[in-house]
């Protein structure tokens, strides 16, 4: 079997196996796995509200998945998607609060550009540090995450904070809000998903069809060989980090423009880290990442419904963990499959 088919099969089989293994856990806590999974499915796809919630959750996950996946392709492990997302969202909000005078055609793309630039700039710090000093990006991006987290909780309580309730910034200007695709009760399905999918396609084209993409991948595969072939490594490292950061920044910006309409201190909620597992499940392929994000988004949305039939949401964390484990250790899945085939053949 060729590698493409493998890349496609491994995640799917992992999901099925994860659901089977988790059903044992559900049985152990005295619940019926069929009832639980039926609720999971209904909660994710059973109503307009459910589908809207899935898409809302999927949107930022696609982008953080892309951010991490793109980094991986260029040989960088960007753990800083979380911090870049926060910085992107925060600076985009600061911009979008003040653009009431602009028409939406200008305000919407400009806000996105500002958010992406903020994410890119923040990630480029780690890129420059790596290119100039060799400081490993895993360490620097983790450190930058904390700076972003504490800075954002300061910003949202002191200079930008308003009103009672959740620590939050003022609402962004109406012209910078993404138009909703549909509204179900208090839930607005935003058009952010379109932006996220476009981003995935663009990244796919950049990686697969352009010279720059080839250079970036070359840097990832073997930096020494790439350098020997005339590729400027340090430039590419900074560029790859910046693009990765721009994607995370966009994730945060879309959350502001489409979902919350303001900046919240806890806006990222670990989605930057989820990007790591999504990139893994999507095998670092931009199109695969869309589906991986959709999978994660629907599992999470569905798990809320699962609670109504008495199965704790934590089961879904188990499912998630097993999927990641199986995808990461894809040899296990391969071995099982190949053995089955051999048994059949004999």
């Amino acid at each position, binding site marked *: 079997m060729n590698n493409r088919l493998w890349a496609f099969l491994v995640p799917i089989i992992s999901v099925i196996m994860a659901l089977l293994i988790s059903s044992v856990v559900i049985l152990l806590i005295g619940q019926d796995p069929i009832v639980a999974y039926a609720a999971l499915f209904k909660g994710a796809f059973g109503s307009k*509200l459910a589908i809207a*919630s899935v898409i*809302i*959750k999927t949107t930022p996950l696609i982008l953080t998945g892309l951010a991490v996946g793109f980094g991986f392709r260029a040989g960088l492990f960007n753990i800083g998607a979380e911090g870049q997302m926060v910085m992107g969202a925060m600076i985009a909000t600061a911009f979008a609060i003040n653009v009431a005078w602009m028409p939406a055609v200008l305000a919407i793309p400009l806000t996105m550009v500002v958010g992406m630039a903020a994410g890119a700039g923040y990630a480029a710090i780690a890129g420059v540090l790596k290119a100039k000093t060799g400081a490993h990006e895993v360490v620097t991006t983790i450190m930058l995450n904390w700076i972003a*987290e*504490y800075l954002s*909780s300061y910003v949202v*309580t002191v200079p930008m904070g308003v*009103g*009672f*309730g*959740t*620590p*939050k910034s003022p609402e962004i200007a109406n012209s910078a809000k993404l138009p909703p695709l549909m509204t179900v*009760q*208090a*839930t607005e399905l935003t058009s952010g998903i379109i932006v996220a999918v476009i981003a995935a396609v663009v990244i796919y084209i950049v990686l697969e069809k352009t010279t720059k993409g080839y250079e970036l991948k070359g840097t990832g595969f073997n930096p020494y060989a790439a350098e020997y072939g005339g590729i400027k490594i340090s430039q590419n490292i900074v560029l790859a980090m910046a693009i990765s950061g721009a994607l995370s920044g966009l994730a945060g910006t879309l959350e502001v423009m489409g*979902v*919350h309409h303001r900046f*919240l*201190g*806890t*806006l990222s*909620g*670990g*989605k930057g880290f989820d990007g790591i597992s999504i990139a893994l499940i999507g095998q670092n392929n931009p199109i695969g990442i869309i589906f991986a994000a959709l999978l994660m988004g629907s599992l*999470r*949305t569905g*798990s*809320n*419904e699962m*609670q*109504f039939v008495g199965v*704790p*949401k934590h089961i879904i964390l188990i499912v998630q963990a097993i999927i990641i484990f199986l995808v990461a250790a894809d040899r296990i899945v391969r071995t099982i499959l190949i053995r089955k085939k051999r048994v059949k053949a004999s």
Partner: protein
Amino acid sequence: MRKALVAIFLVMVVVFAMGFKVIMVTDIGGLGDKSFNDGTWEGALIAAKEIGAEAQVIQSYEQADYIPNLTKAAQQADVVFAVGFMMTDALFKVAKQFPNTYFVGIDITPPEGQTLPNVVCYIFKEEQAGFYAGYIGAAMTATGKIGFVGGIPIPPVERFRYGFEAGAKIYSTLHKKKVEVLKGYTNDFEDPKKGKDLTLAQYAQGADIVFLAAGACGNGGIEAAKEKMVALVGSDKLADIIDYYMKNKKGYFAIGVDVDQDYMAPGVVLCSATKGISTAAYYGVKAAWEGTFEGGLQVLGIKEDGAGVSPMKYTKGMVPNSVIAEVAYLTKLVKDGKLVIPDTEDALKAFQVPSITFPF
């Protein structure tokens, strides 16, 4: 005829009760926070049991879950609980869509100018609970330094701090004991590790009693206190801790928050500054059931059983009787409005300890 009527009435009551459903939506802290999520759930359960209603809990992963979870809950339940300050905006958005469902917000202040007839919000005079922590902490410290570990500096956390600082100031003025208050925030309500680190840092700066107003982060702070205390005493048994303290008059203590957390480390948690969370949750359900539900904001303090101090089941022996008597007397002054605990930063700055003479 009368029998038939009674029978019909009874059936109706039973059917009605069967249909009555209470759903609580937690914030991201979730159940098991040993704090206000658990406290609300406890109160909701007691009330549900009493009236024979069905009760369910739905937990949220992230802020984006609040609206869908509240919506789903409102579709199914008669009374929906939204727990925690962070859910304010979501609660009011959803409640507008479901005018026939009752909503109870715990620790939630209605946004300016927004009151809905189907939403009752309970908040607490945390400063009055924090006052106990500050007063008892100041009385018990051997180093003259007590610490405050807050979660995210949102108003309820800040009110705890105002009360804590005021309580310490009252003790220090009345007894002419110099007490310094250290302050820090974890910027989080979930991760016990952050609470532990900050608590250990304050111990390192010389504090020996730390008040943990940080939700589930506080659980880590209690763990830190326990570790330090056990290292000092050489045993984690309550009797040994009490013996050691009575002999040496020193130790490491934590002060719990929201609900009675004294049991989490007997002898190490000096006391807990409690809020009447389960009381509020209980009244919310009862009011909806009895049809006396009224939308708006309810502020519960010492007087309304909305703020208090744990009974100090394990540590009573260590705290001098005089302190306990003073606390009881001051409680009465607060109840009568003769002692006003500051509830804003400005009030705290302007706070002057009134001349209080204990009648003993």
